[in-house]
């Protein structure tokens, strides 16, 4: 059978073969471009970061006026808390999850999978843009919240923010793998949202929730910003570390199990 690949093939037919050789970064780039084109045209998704940023900014101004420019730490903490939880959860799950669901709905996922895109390329191509957007919004929210920037521990902030954003993206992939269409994706997202977004947000109000919040990756993130808002130093604890990386590992594991079973789409 080896001869079949041989000289009989006309020269102009070798275009596809050539594409196979030069690494596969261009394929990752192509998926990323597709995701960017889809996400940037989806107003439902694009409006999210703007709402988060706008809300934090508006609150700061409104409350700032009454207290002559400086917010009480509790409010700053609350603002950051809501902004960042909303950003990481709502945006992360929904951006990644619905964009995969949209591809299933329109049968473009099958088109991609029969165009030589691998599962790994699709995975990273799908989360790259959302990840960058989540990170960007985390920083923007931090800057506009009015927190004193001298006490921000930049490396831990980056680390916590990156791991939390990544976990959120992986959860979004899980939503996407389970969802049949966009409606379905939203429905599947709700339980995740309730847990990962609402608990840290209401953690400020109830001691019990606050405790639970410490065991969630979003809670670690908001716990950190809360400290910063209070003007305290943040040092990453072993628990924070375990929660962050543990939950990332669990999400990746769940994703892999689901992926191994049916791929992105059940036939």
């Amino acid at each position, binding site marked *: 059978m080896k001869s079949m690949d041989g000289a009989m093939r006309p020269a102009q037919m070798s275009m*596809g073969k050539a594409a196979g050789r030069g690494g596969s970064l261009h394929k990752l780039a192509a998926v990323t471009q597709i995701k960017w*084109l889809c996400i940037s045209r989806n107003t439902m998704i694009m409006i999210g970061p703007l709402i988060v940023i706008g809300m934090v900014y508006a609150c700061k101004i409104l409350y700032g006026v009454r207290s002559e420019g400086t917010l009480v730490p509790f409010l700053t903490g609350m603002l950051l808390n809501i902004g960042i939880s909303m950003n990481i959860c709502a945006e992360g799950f929904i951006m990644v999850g619905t964009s995969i669901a949209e591809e299933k709905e329109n049968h473009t996922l099958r088109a991609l999978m029969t165009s*030589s895109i*691998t599962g790994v390329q699709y995975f990273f191509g799908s989360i790259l843009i959302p990840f960058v957007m989540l990170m960007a919004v985390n920083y923007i929210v931090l800057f506009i919240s009015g927190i004193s920037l001298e006490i921000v521990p930049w490396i831990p902030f980056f680390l916590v923010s990156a791991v939390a954003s990544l976990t959120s993206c992986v959860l979004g992939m899980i939503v996407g793998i389970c969802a049949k269409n966009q409606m379905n994706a939203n429905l599947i997202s709700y339980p995740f949202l309730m847990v990962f977004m609402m608990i840290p947000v209401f953690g400020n109000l109830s001691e019990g929730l606050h405790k639970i919040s410490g065991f969630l990756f979003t809670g670690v993130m908001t716990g950190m910003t809360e400290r910063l808002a209070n003007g305290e130093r943040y040092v990453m604890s072993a628990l924070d570390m375990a929660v962050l990386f543990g939950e990332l590992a669990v999400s990746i594991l769940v994703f892999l199990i689901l992926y191994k079973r049916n791929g992105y789409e059940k036939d």
Partner: protein
Amino acid sequence: MEQNVLLSLSHVSKRFKTELALKDINMTLRQGEILGFLGPSGAGKTTTIKIITGQLRQTSGEARLLGTDSANIDESIYENIGVVSDSSGIYKKMTVWQNLAVFARIWKVPRERVEQVLDQVGLAEHKNKPAGKLSKGQTQRLVLARAVLHKPRVLFLDEPTSGLDPTTAVAIHRMLLELKEQGMAIFLTTHNMEEATKLCDRVALLHDGEIVEFGSPQEICLKYNRNKKYHVLLAGGRELELAQNPENIVKITRWMEGDEIMRIHSCEPTLETVFLEVTGKDLNV
């Protein structure tokens, strides 16, 4: 095995739970050939394509595509084949151009090739339109354009013209014949017998997961041309259908000599009538 065989199936069967969807399928596809898989709904056409392209696993038998057993196919095979099926979607929010451009990136296809393909399918003037705004026929042409963008060696088409107007269908037929001229092997499924007769070098008639007849459309039709018949229109408007027998031959000769025949056709079977005959659903009995 012949050198230019790109695809071969031997004894391929597929069972879905209890239902046997494909039974002992054997066939080959060569370079520059169009092979038609014909059959009614549920015959197993789509299932066959899915098995060959590695989207579904056969229960038994062997399918080899471009020298690779379909069980060992990985994504790289798609750099050399193109697939159009009813589940090949387009990005509706992107423009026609972007829809092709992103796939051009995947396959490292130059920009000029995208222009060329757009011209070929007649969508050049719509290239800046959101793909979601295209009509059904235009969408189908876009999907086809994408499938041939990287000049695949084998093209799989699952009912490429179903639900299209005759003009679009003819345009697609013309394009397929051009691609074949360039050496592409095309595997298409259809339940349109006319389309198959016109396009295919060889056809397989599939019925309940079994190939009941295989060969060129002409061969198949002539094979079933057992009772030769002629359709005659005589001067004066009388129409007759005459079987070939000594008595009728004399009759026709006499009419010919008297220049009484306005029109005469041989009534050989079409793929359609053959199909009805071999599947035992002969409606003309």
